[in-house]
């Protein structure tokens, strides 16, 4: 009916199509699982339910709130309306200073308490992560 060449091309096309669909499906699937949402302290306060997914919290480090012990650091992130206490053990970036912007990644224990696994560094003392800017600017 069809020539061998046509069949071969047809097979080739189907193969490409299937692999393309498969990879897109795979990518979207794991995107769903591995996305980290960004929230401000106020958004966390108004959360209906807590889950144990990793999130990022951004805002300002509250003045006079940093307490350092040998194995951990405690501080408070504020967006000037609500605040959240953070416990963190790990490397501290140089620009982690009271009164400056910060983004912490980790897990919520409850609405007032955050367990951070990472504090993000910045490169520029004037630079502020867009989320922090917005979290503060919105208010």
């Amino acid at each position, binding site marked *: 009916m069809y020539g061998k060449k046509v069949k071969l091309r047809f097979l080739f096309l189907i193969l490409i199509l299937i692999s393309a669909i498969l990879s897109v499906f795979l990518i979207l699937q794991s995107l769903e699982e*591995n996305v980290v949402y960004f929230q401000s302290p106020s958004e966390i306060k108004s959360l209906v339910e807590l889950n144990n997914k990793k999130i990022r919290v951004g805002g300002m480090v509250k003045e006079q709130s940093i307490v350092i012990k040998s194995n951990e650091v405690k501080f408070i992130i504020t967006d000037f309306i609500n605040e959240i206490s953070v416990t963190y053990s790990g490397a*501290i970036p*140089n620009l982690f200073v009271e009164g400056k912007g910060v983004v912490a990644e980790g897990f919520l224990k409850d609405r007032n308490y955050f367990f951070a696994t990472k504090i993000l560094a910045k*490169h520029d*003392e004037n*630079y502020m992560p*867009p*989320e922090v800017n917005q979290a503060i600017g919105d208010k």
Partner: protein
Amino acid sequence: MLANQIGYYSLVIGVLFSFFVCAASIKDFNSSNKRISQNVLALSFMQLTFVVVSFLSLILSFIKSDFSNETVFNNSHTTKPLFYKISGTWGNHEGSLLLWLLVLTLFIFVFLVKSRKQPKKYRILTLLIQQIIIIGFFLFVLITSNPFNYLFPIPNEGLGLNPILQDPILAIHPPILYLGYVGSSIIFSASLAAITQNYVSKEWGQHIKKWVLVSWIFLSIGIMLGSIWAYYELGWGGFWFWDPVENVSLMPWLTLTALLHCILVLEKRGVLKSWVVILSITTFTLSMCGTFLVRSGILNSVHTFANDPSRGIFILIFLFVLIFLSLGIFFLSHKEKNEDFYNFFWLSKETSILVNNWFMMYFLSVILIGTVYPIFLDVVTAEKISVGPPFYHKLIAPFLAPFLIFMAFAIKLKWIKSKIENRYSLIILFLTSLFLTFLIIKNLSTDLLFYTVLISAAFFLFFTTLKELFIQKLKNIPQTVAHFGFSLLMLSILFNSILSSEIITNIKIGERYNYNKSQIFFEKIEEKKGSNFNSIIGYFKITNENGKIIQLKPEIRIYNQPKIITSEADIKTTFLEDKFLVMNIVKGNEYFNIRYQTKPFMFWIWISVLLLSTGGLISVLKKNYEK
């Protein structure tokens, strides 16, 4: 002051010359002359000269700390060492764009000189398309990011360069990366010119291959330099973070690598023409996107520096014009004569290269989606998200093993029709790799099956390429060296990720911290004065489980202008592993935050990227590669 004026007017004259070049080459296009008229060459040379003059005068302004120039004022300081005054020229937005422009004009001139044997109309069209890009960049520089803005009254002192950019590697990283990015613009223009002239052929493949290789080498080395810098300067203790800014440099690299392989097929067999053109367009578009995303501040990355959104819109419009133009040209001149597929035998070098391209396209789409999806979601739903390393690892790692095994098989395949030779030696090599991996892995507490498969695949490629290196004649040297480098890279990365260890703690001076029979002793600190910073040097003695003591001296630098604190990690590199110590201070506290890491095979990661590029370099230098 004078340099400022000269720089600005050179740029303006440079734009005029772009139009002259266009006019002259359009006139020359239909003339009966067989060669490009000297006028066009001379005009193109003049254009290059004016951009060079402009660039040199910007450097001069930086050296003289001429603060009447806004760019110098924003990015320099009198106490900065001379070397960083010069590198500060391209360490900022305006200067780096001027560098783009310089490389663009330089490359098109080199192209004109080097392509004398090519058809005249093709050369002129390449020149014209390249001039469109050049004019776009001229306007971009002059309108949105003029490096020669005048400041009055003249400030006494500048704002200084961000200290983390004051680094020898970061001084050469942008120029090298740009050579790679901009090299892809030549491939872009040339492939569009070639398709309109119906000149996408074996001869064209042979001629453009050099450009592909050169861009690829520069891009590879540029990415590696950035990675080395991030490793020791940011103190995160890794070489790749799947940060959006890193991803945008990796994406053109992937398409360029795919293109590099396809060009070989085109050169040998004269097929895959459309695909080569599509890859050329994609590579350049991705390079432009990289510049756009990094410069516009759209990317949600810890790498982004403060910047200006109006610039982003200009690049975006420019980008769209280029994409539509190129797709238009592509579809209008595309010949509906698709002889590509059906004379491919399933077991041949060309099929294997197609499979390589499938993998590349898959990796590309993973990275593209991971990078763009957060931006997309932010625009559509205003939800802020980030996509982290687990996403990439999960999607890329499982495909790496088949990719590596496939590479190992493909190395010995021949063109047109091939069969697998030396089956037994392949099987023996495979079993050896499996066995070796199992021996190494079984003592480690990691995900056994997953890593066994991945590492044995990497070993398999390693051994097959190693064997090739020894037995073969000089014929395939570039290919073998590059693939050997790649296998080494994969092995180093895999072992690095399994065997790395890390200790993070807060420690006071004089304290000891014990863990796993090892000890970190914080002896003392010492203060020192550098030319534009004060530094605190920490003295640490680290005793490992065998009782061996090493001393590490990480540093904290407090720069005077801008007032920024940076940490300089101290790294002891040996063939087998890096010992990495970085410390930070937290304001007003006696505790220092330290991070101590042992990172095996870091050295080999850099070496293997160099090997990879060396493969490309040999291929450029070798005239009759694979005859």
